[in-house]
């Protein structure tokens, strides 16, 4: 097996909320807790989970928009977990990010040409004419027209804006792109176009993706491997087929059972697992297994001892004390 492009080792991220003078004092939000995984070159790792489970925080930690509280990040063999923003700069051309909201991630006061040229201006010494040619080329690659370059973001639809964001991300031929819910804000018909564009680009430019999403059907379509997150940790990880066809963790099972099935006959036979209660607050996460408050098969041990994610097959791992006791729904 080749060397991993990205290694995430036991990463934690905590935010403090409030001040000494607020009513509840300083509270610590445990956004990420002991997250570990590796990403191989050329693959797409899907990150799924409910909103607030730390997916986006993880994406921003990987791109070092946030500092890690603890843990290690190794990118292509180099430890980047403690680099300062200044030291990160040369590496930024190799790790890029696409944001969820295509309306907020483009500066409304700059023309498309300048938005896409920004990484080229910062990282290369290309002449203006050359930059202009590259911008036209990039617009063409993402399916926009060269004369769109002189327009402002507000003149485009959500899907077109996301294409601009993608053009900006691929401008420097990066190796890894973190896609933070790139299609969640778009219409379903446009979602398919963007997903196809991303798949096409991956093939052409030899890209590695970390695809963050809460829409399971999209994730299944794009991912080679999937990591399921719950309350700041990864509860299960495996190939896309394993996760969808043989989910081992009760949380994954509940998620998969909630995916609408196009075939009505098949839907009738599948049992739907409905979770009760809300996601516990990350300010005060439950002891033991984080999922025990909502788990249909929780036992005494789950309330006390936190399960460690252990391998349970080739490329497969699950963090549950009773993964075998799970009722198979499919």
């Amino acid at each position: 097996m080749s060397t991993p492009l990205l290694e995430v080792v036991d990463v934690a991220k905590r935010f403090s909320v409030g001040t000494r003078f607020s009513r509840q004092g300083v509270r610590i939000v445990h956004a990420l807790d002991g997250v570990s995984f590796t990403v191989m070159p050329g693959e797409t790792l899907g990150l799924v989970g409910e909103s607030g489970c730390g997916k986006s925080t993880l994406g921003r930690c990987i791109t070092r928009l946030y500092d890690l509280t603890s843990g290690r990040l190794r990118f292509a063999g180099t430890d980047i977990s403690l680099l300062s923003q200044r030291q990160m700069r040369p590496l930024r051309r190799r790790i890029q990010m696409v944001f969820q909201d295509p309306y907020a991630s483009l500066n409304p006061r700059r023309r498309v040409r300048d938005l896409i040229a920004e990484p080229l201006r910062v990282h290369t010494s290309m002449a203006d004419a050359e930059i202009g040619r590259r911008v036209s080329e990039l617009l063409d690659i993402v399916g926009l027209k060269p004369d769109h370059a002189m327009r402002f973001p507000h003149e485009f639809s959500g899907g077109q804006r996301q294409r601009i964001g993608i053009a900006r991300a691929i401008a420097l031929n990066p190796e890894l792109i973190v896609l933070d819910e790139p299609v969640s804000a778009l219409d379903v018909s446009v979602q398919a176009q963007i997903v196809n564009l991303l798949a096409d680009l991956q093939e052409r430019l030899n890209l590695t993706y970390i695809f963050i999403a809460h829409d399971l059907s999209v994730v299944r379509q794009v991912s080679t491997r999937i990591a399921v997150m719950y309350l700041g940790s990864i509860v299960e990880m495996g190939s896309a087929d394993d996760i969808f066809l043989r989910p081992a963790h009760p949380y994954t099972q509940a998620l998969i059972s909630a995916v609408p099935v196009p075939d009505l006959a098949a839907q009738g036979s599948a049992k739907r697992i409905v979770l009760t209660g809300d996601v516990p607050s990350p300010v005060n996460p439950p002891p033991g297994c984080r999922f025990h408050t909502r788990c249909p098969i929780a036992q005494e041990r789950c309330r006390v001892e936190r399960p460690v994610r252990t391998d349970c097959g080739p490329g497969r791992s699950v963090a549950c004390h009773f993964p075998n006791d799970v009722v198979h729904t499919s």
Partner: protein
Amino acid sequence: MTVASGTLSATPKSRGPWATALRRLLRDRAAVFALFIFVLIVVLCLLAPVYAAWANTDPFTSTLDAVVHINGQDVPVMEQSTEGLGLGYTPIGPTWQIGNYFLGADNQGRDVMARLLYGGLNSLLIAGMATVVTLFFATLLGLAAGFFGGIIDTLISRFLDILWAFPVYLLAISLSIVLIAQGLNLGIITIESGSLWLPIFIIGVVYVPYVARPIRGQVLALRESDFVLAAIGLGVPSYRILLRDILPNVSTTLIVFVPIMMALNMITESALSFLSIGVQPPDASWGTIIQDGQNLLYTRPMVALAPGIAIVITVLALNVLGDGLRDALDPRSKIRIGRS
């Protein structure tokens, strides 16, 4: 897809946010009228030397023995008082003849109209330059505090709080009294005690917190916005993010502040000058002319009324213009439009 692109290409030229705002402003009749009035006042004041030359008067020296030519008669500028005990002199009232003591004379026998125009020039100059001073320092402090945060933010914010703790006029008056007496010496910069730069500097500094605070808040919000995060993710250096991503997005707020601060500065300048701690005689401003007219209020009210009316009209025009600018530049203004 192709249809959408087709219609987009059909638009002759893409309209940027500035062009859109300008169009919106030009559609606002009240704002356009206010702008017209303001420009008219500025042009009239700029013509002050022309008026003085044409009227053949020097508005900065006493001309107690001058003679006015009205309807073929020669009348002295200072008339023997007819009221009370008939002691002292009363300056001539308005002749309503342009270039010939149009608004009458003041206690020194000087043409009030000429002084009004020269005074307007000073008032506008001080208000405008003080606005530049305020916006410059406020932008600098607001950007630094909001963008860098931490200890820099704490230091700047506390400094602004201290400045803010003083009532504006108390601070302006105390600064003026001290500085008018001895001038300002900041090592490289020295300002003479009679210089116009003194009121400009004082008024400019006093209002810095009022502008810096909202700027800081905006920068703070922009700092967390996706497009700034995107720029950081692209490896854009901080100075470039400040210049390209943050400053252009606070510039609308700065522009809205220009007419509002000018109006405020004009009122503050008049107040200081009225209290003799702004523009120093024989130089004039609308504030000093009101003070000149104070003693003549019962006999020759026009001396004090004319600059007062000038201030009211200018400030009103600036405020209406400020409202229009805010509506034109603030994308959320659609919600607030009350006029149909």
